[in-house]
């Protein structure tokens, strides 16, 4: 990335980049809002204390500059929301989604170069959830890649089970490491 060469994105790559960018921007917005809050509060306090003194009435610039701090802090906050809001890069579209398709998409694009073979078992039941299919596939891909990375570095002999669960508006995904091999009575598997 650092050599300026164009980055080739896979099918979920754009969504992943957008999610990372939004996460970074979100942390930045949070930190800057905290600082702006401290500036506004400090300015308010100084203004309130100074307004009771002769210095305040003797120098009109004090009131003017106090107003500048308040206005500029407000303007900076608006800029944060307008310019640093990257939500438009990935517009979530929640719909009834077949989670199995998301799993297949995740497997097809998972970036696993070395380490253990990836095998995914899909249960035969319906896997429909209310979710954005791209977002769900991306989350599953992250789980799979993390599991493989973990196995590869720790040389663990266990199995990692990634599960996606949900029927209503919420869906959850998680992974856990099993000490023992799970039963092989699934109806579908991919290696």
């Amino acid at each position, binding site marked *: 990335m650092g050599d300026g060469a164009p980055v080739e994105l896979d099918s979920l790559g754009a969504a992943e980049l957008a999610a990372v960018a939004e996460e970074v921007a979100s942390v930045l917005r*949070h*930190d800057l*809002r905290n600082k702006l809050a401290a500036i506004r509060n*400090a300015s308010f306090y100084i203004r309130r204390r100074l307004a009771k003194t002769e210095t305040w009435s003797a120098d009109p610039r004090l009131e003017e500059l106090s107003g500048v701090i308040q206005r500029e802090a407000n303007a900076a906050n608006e800029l944060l929301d307008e310019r640093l809001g990257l939500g438009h890069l990935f517009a979530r579209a929640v719909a009834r989604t077949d989670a199995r398709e998301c799993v297949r998409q995740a497997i097809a694009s998972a970036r696993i170069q070395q380490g253990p073979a990836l095998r995914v078992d899909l249960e035969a039941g319906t896997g429909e959830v209310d979710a954005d299919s791209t977002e769900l596939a991306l989350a599953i891909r992250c789980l799979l890649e993390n599991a493989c990375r973990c196995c590869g570095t720790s040389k663990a002999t266990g199995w990692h089970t990634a599960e996606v669960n949900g029927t209503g508006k919420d869906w959850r995904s998680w992974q856990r490491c099993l000490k023992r091999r799970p039963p092989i009575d699934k109806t579908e598997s991919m290696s």
Partner: protein
Amino acid sequence: MSSGSFRRPSSPSGSLPPGGISSGSFRTADLVAERYRVLVVDDEPAVLLSLQSVLSEDVDLMTCESAERALELLEEHPFHVVVSDFLLPGMNGYDLFRLIRGLPEYTSCLLITGSDAYEQPRDKERHYVLLKPFDPERLITLVVQLGRVAQMKRAVRRLGTSVAGKVG
């Protein structure tokens, strides 16, 4: 930054007209004589100092930097209002408020946050939220109003207990 005693300003403001007196353990005079006690929780020292400066003229304040310390202070001191940041090291502000709702005395809760991650909980017990960077005047107004709400709710509860005791 963590303080162990209430900070009182030299010139209290916002005095209210004297109230009447009723019988039993409930006295309406209690409603007007008390200054609201407020606990402010934020892990950013600069924000905490600035919040303390903004509020200190209007209420009695204590501050701390974590939800865990806030719970200890709540055991030692009765507060009318807890003002907390959402993102804190360890327990977050929302979880802190859930525990506060379990306290025997009603305590008003005000969440302040600059986080995009915060979403108003779906349960019935919602709390007030101010988004950073907020107007300091608005913060003062809200905290005083929430102090009044806590005071009224406690008084009504005491009145109910008192009446129930006499009837029973």
